[in-house]
């Protein structure tokens, strides 16, 4: 069979807008996920038992159920029993965010636990309240130490967003499937998609490294 990569060029506009969908979903999910993960990890380290239970139950659900099932549940299942309606984008982003919050909060908990007791004591001794202490002293240090796993989470999130193709959103993968059904060619589109993702992930890792170097500027030189 003759390979013909010119079809990729023909579909480039579609790929372009699909790429935007992929990036949008990833970035929104990550930011939301980070936001969710903070109260979640605070629950996990709190002394209040019920909060710990809720947080670990939450985590176990999102770890225990396949992501695709979660996506279907949110998009097809939930609107049938609750008075909510999601677009494919909203449902996907929400699930990815809640899912990554579960994972991020796990590593964040470790990061917070690893911080020296002296940091808490110094903040308390200066009269700083719990919220301020967490926001200004503890979390910044914790996030710094979990940054590598955060970058990992970001990368797997990026790749997981291909699942939104299954609820009808036109992301990069969906464009590939369209090309395949129109032209009966599979190698070229999926090869192009692989390259797209590979480049994206490499770019992200690079950004992660830069970020890491930036936040580590306070370490001994």
């Amino acid at each position, binding site marked *: 069979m003759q390979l013909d990569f010119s079809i990729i060029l023909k579909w480039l506009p579609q790929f372009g807008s699909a790429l935007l969908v992929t990036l949008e979903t990833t970035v929104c999910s990550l930011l939301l996920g980070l936001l969710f993960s903070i109260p979640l990890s605070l629950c996990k380290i709190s002394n209040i038992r019920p909060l710990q239970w809720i947080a670990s139950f939450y985590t176990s659900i999102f770890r225990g159920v396949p992501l695709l099932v979660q996506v279907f549940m949110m998009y097809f299942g939930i609107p049938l029993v609750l008075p909510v309606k999601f677009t494919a984008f909203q449902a996907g982003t929400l699930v990815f965010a809640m899912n990554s919050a579960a994972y991020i909060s796990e590593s964040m908990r470790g990061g917070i636990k690893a911080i020296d007791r002296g940091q808490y004591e110094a903040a*308390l001794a200066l009269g700083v309240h719990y919220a301020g202490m967490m926001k200004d002293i503890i979390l910044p*240090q914790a996030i710094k130490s979990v940054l590598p796993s955060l970058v990992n989470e970001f990368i797997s999130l990026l790749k997981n967003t291909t699942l939104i193709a299954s609820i009808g959103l036109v992301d990069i993968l969906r464009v590939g499937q369209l090309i395949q059904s129109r032209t009966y060619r599979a190698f070229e589109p999926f090869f192009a998609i692989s390259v797209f993702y590979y480049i994206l992930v490499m770019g992200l890792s690079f950004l992660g490294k830069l970020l890491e170097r930036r936040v580590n500027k306070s370490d001994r030189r």
Partner: protein
Amino acid sequence: MIDVKGLYKDFGSLHVLRGVDLHVDEGEIISIIGPSGSGKSTLLRSINLLEKPTFGEIWVEEKLITPPDPYLHTEIIRASYTYKAMMAARGEDIKVIREIKEKDLLKENSRFLRKEGPEYYALLKKIIAEHYENAYSVRRRVGMVFQHFNLFPHKTVLENMIYAPMKVNRLERPKAVEKARALLDSVGMLAKQDVYPDTLSGGQKQRVAIARALAMDPDIVLFDEPTSALDPEMVKEVLDVIKRLAETGMTMLLVTHEMGFAREVSDRICFLDEGVLIEDAPPDIFFSTPKSERARTFLDKVL
């Protein structure tokens, strides 16, 4: 200025403090010494509530900072069901109160407080309403210097200095910076204002930590073994800073192993052993003629 009354602290079955009474006047410099494990640090850390006492009360500037201890207010105990029941059975006031407290210390009637009636709680609430002040506002006025410095590693020296004054005392940034720079200058650290703590030596870190505590304008500064984590050649620079602070008339409580220094700067030496304050005397008297056998043994070992 500070009143510690009947302070007990348990860590599980370990009784670290067993009834400590200590009074500190304004401008006094008191060194707390004693063998390791004697409860020195716990006593110091209780004063700004980094440790919550099991029993006893702490008063800072006429304000009660711990929950009221019923055993220090006998009228509260007398209002309790437990007391009334025991009085009805046997009836000798002082003995009964002592008995209840001893049982409580042994955790035998640790549930007794929950079963009490309105009269008992009304008395407790009255004391709280009149005298109680919460930990956060107390800590603002009580500075603390730690053995391991505990500077914030993700903030520069200057940011370390201005963080709490801005956050807690609502000082505006220019004012906070001005004050921080003056304090850094006074401990000889102004040149390092923009570096991160990890690039400093132990002695430099501790000088910054002292300046950071002073930036909150505390009425009293607590030093928890400020030189114990330092290399020997850095001890002096930190002690010099503390000494200069002492000369300004700051009220200070100092847990230390530096006997020479304690003798030099202190108004009083408190000797703590196994959770009990067994000597409280001016340094000359304490170091030359200690009253107790245990203090003598301790001094023989360290001097």
